[in-house]
């Protein structure tokens, strides 16, 4: 279904769910061992910095230059789109690796990795083929489930929470900066966001900033909840939220983890679909019209290449690299916008 301009408010659930996915399913890297105090400060700092940068970006970049960028008619546009495709596909590959590992982590008898990865990509490809409008509708339902699941997780864990489990640290500044530096402080989903046909100056920037702020708040609350229940163990676990889900119970009901895992896999699928959408849109601009049908296979190939690259990198470096790649892509878009406006 073609659309002229998507209302930006409809994108909020999609962006929020994609940005918050890593709060519940962390990438399988070495735990950062940061206390919740550091996590809260780190999220506040990142959200403030990213929102400021986004406001500056949306102020400087015009809708017309983004339209020109999406078509890919200019050589400069192709160069920028190529870099966006690399950033989005790397993040998509990292998401694929995380989703497959998480499915293996929660399964008693796991399916073959190739089959799991193929199914995830298949579902994401189908979502992309249906269009971003359909994705936003699905995201609305997934967002409601996600938030209800979060409330259930909090309610079922609070009986085991103790204030005395919260940790205090003397060198909180160092731990905050370390967590910020090695985390995914600039998600590639924001790149995919600017590729969608939305009127950025009429609410697009507000939508993005609200999603970033809401996601940061979600990260902070989940870090505090994990530490209230698990104490210093929370920072040493690879999947603290999954541990909370297995621990919690309400009255006679135990083992809500099956419910939470189902919702979190949906969230990962949606995130994969959104990143694949960004990659596909960038690749579409690079290819001539007669090769338009190859844009989805091209995006899938790039995502798989991103997944292999991510697996080969040292642990903990994928998030940082993805953030730097996204930052440079945003810089390239700004430069392109300045050049096209000067030229016109």
């Amino acid at each position, binding site marked *: 279904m073609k659309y002229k301009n998507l209302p930006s408010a409809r994108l909020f659930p999609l962006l929020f769910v994609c940005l918050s996915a890593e709060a519940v399913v962390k990438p399988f890297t070495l735990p950062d061992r940061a206390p919740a105090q550091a996590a809260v400060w780190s999220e506040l700092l990142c959200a403030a910095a990213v929102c400021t940068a986004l406001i500056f970006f949306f102020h400087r970049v015009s809708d017309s230059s983004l339209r020109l960028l999406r078509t890919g008619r200019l050589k400069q546009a192709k160069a920028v789109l190529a870099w966006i495709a690399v950033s989005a596909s790397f993040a998509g590959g990292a998401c694929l690796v995380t989703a497959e590992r998480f499915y293996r*982590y929660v399964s*008693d*008898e796991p*399916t073959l990795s190739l089959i799991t990865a193929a*199914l995830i990509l*298949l*579902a994401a*490809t*189908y979502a992309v*083929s*249906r269009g971003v409008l359909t994705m936003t509708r699905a995201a609305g339902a997934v967002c409601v489930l996600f938030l209800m699941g979060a409330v259930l997780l909090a309610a079922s864990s609070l*009986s*085991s929470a*103790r*204030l*005395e*489990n*919260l940790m*205090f*640290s*003397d060198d909180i500044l160092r731990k905050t900066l370390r967590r910020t530096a090695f985390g995914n402080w600039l998600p590639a989903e924001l790149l995919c966001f600017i590729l969608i046909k939305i009127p950025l100056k009429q609410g697009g920037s507000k939508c993005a900033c609200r999603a970033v702020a809401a996601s940061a708040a979600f990260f902070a609350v989940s870090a505090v909840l994990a530490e209230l*229940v*698990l*104490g210093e*163990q929370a920072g040493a*676990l*690879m*999947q603290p939220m999954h*541990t909370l889900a*297995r*621990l919690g*119970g309400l009255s006679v009901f*135990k083992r809500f983890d099956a419910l939470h895992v189902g919702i979190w896999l949906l969230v990962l699928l949606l995130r994969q679909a959104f990143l694949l959408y960004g990659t596909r849109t960038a690749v579409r601009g690079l290819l001539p019209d007669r090769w338009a049908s190859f844009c989805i296979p091209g995006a899938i190939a790039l995502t798989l290449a991103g997944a292999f690259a991510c697996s080969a990198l040292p642990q903990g470096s994928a998030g940082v690299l993805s953030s730097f790649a996204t930052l440079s892509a945003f810089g390239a878009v700004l430069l392109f916008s300045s050049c096209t406006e000067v030229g016109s």
Partner: protein
Amino acid sequence: MKIFAMLLLATLFLTGCSATSLGDRAVVKAVYLDHTEEGYAASIVVYGCEPTTDAASAEGKAAIYSGVGDDVPQALAQAEQQQTKEPFYAQNGLLLLGRGCREKDPAPILSYFGEEDASRKDLAVYLTELSPEEFQQCEKGISDVIREAERLAASSGGRGAFGIHEAKCEDGFSGLLPVLRFSEESSSATVRSAVLFERGVPCASVEGAALQLASLLLGKTSELTMEITQGEERLEVAVKGATVRKNMSGSPAEGVLELELSGTIVSLTWGGKAVYARESKQASEEVNRFVEKLFYELVQITFERKNDIFGLSWWMKEQSSTQTAQLERSGELYDPGRLSFSCHLRYE
């Protein structure tokens, strides 16, 4: 698009039919581990079930399989190999530690089960007074023991037992492990005492009213049932809705952590007879004095020895972590003079 939709629909047929059926699995309901001279002894309690049963209702004849090894995984593997089915640990809610763990640090065992994805995170841990050989003799009544232990663990909204996620094992295990009493002759399981560990060394046994107060301070219960012996007479008290309010007055360097226990006495008997209005005030004051004395006895064996299992120093750190760190370095933090406890239980 139809091709994609068809492929996605085809995934509905991925139902895991080739997976091991429940009838071919050994449902492990409890694990027993103990230190031995050579290493570790492990026993698993396995329930048999029909092929069509779901795991949660696996009951019937329980069997105990045992093994030994140099380390915990080896001992468990040996025990699993004594039977032919694939072990299924998702229903294992109990970790029983043997008599040897009352003399040697249980940290290696707790650390093994505390690892991520190693076990159910609500695994309840109990000490027992049984050696590996004595535990193996308990096969006949073990189902009743497990049922009772699970009931105890589920009490107080699931906070009743010591959970594996609470085990702090950095410098050896420090904490309070409840002792589950049962034997080959008696399959009724009770918890009447707990062993206090201080950095891997068992240093005290806590029982009776002291154990109840310790559970309250650890947030595991809001009810107290105590027997206070006064000369030849006995005061029996049941308290509900007990809470401990904590307040740090002043900075950690100069202030005092005030703890106030409040609650309602729902049942009070003195010398076997119910207490009525005129004597109730005197009896309540007696109870309050007793609980205050009990608190300071607990502080003597925990906080004063820098084994702060109740997290009392957290309230000082909350005021000022820098000052608290300085006091800890100078050795002045764990001074019982920094604590003030008052008990205000009321009989209604």
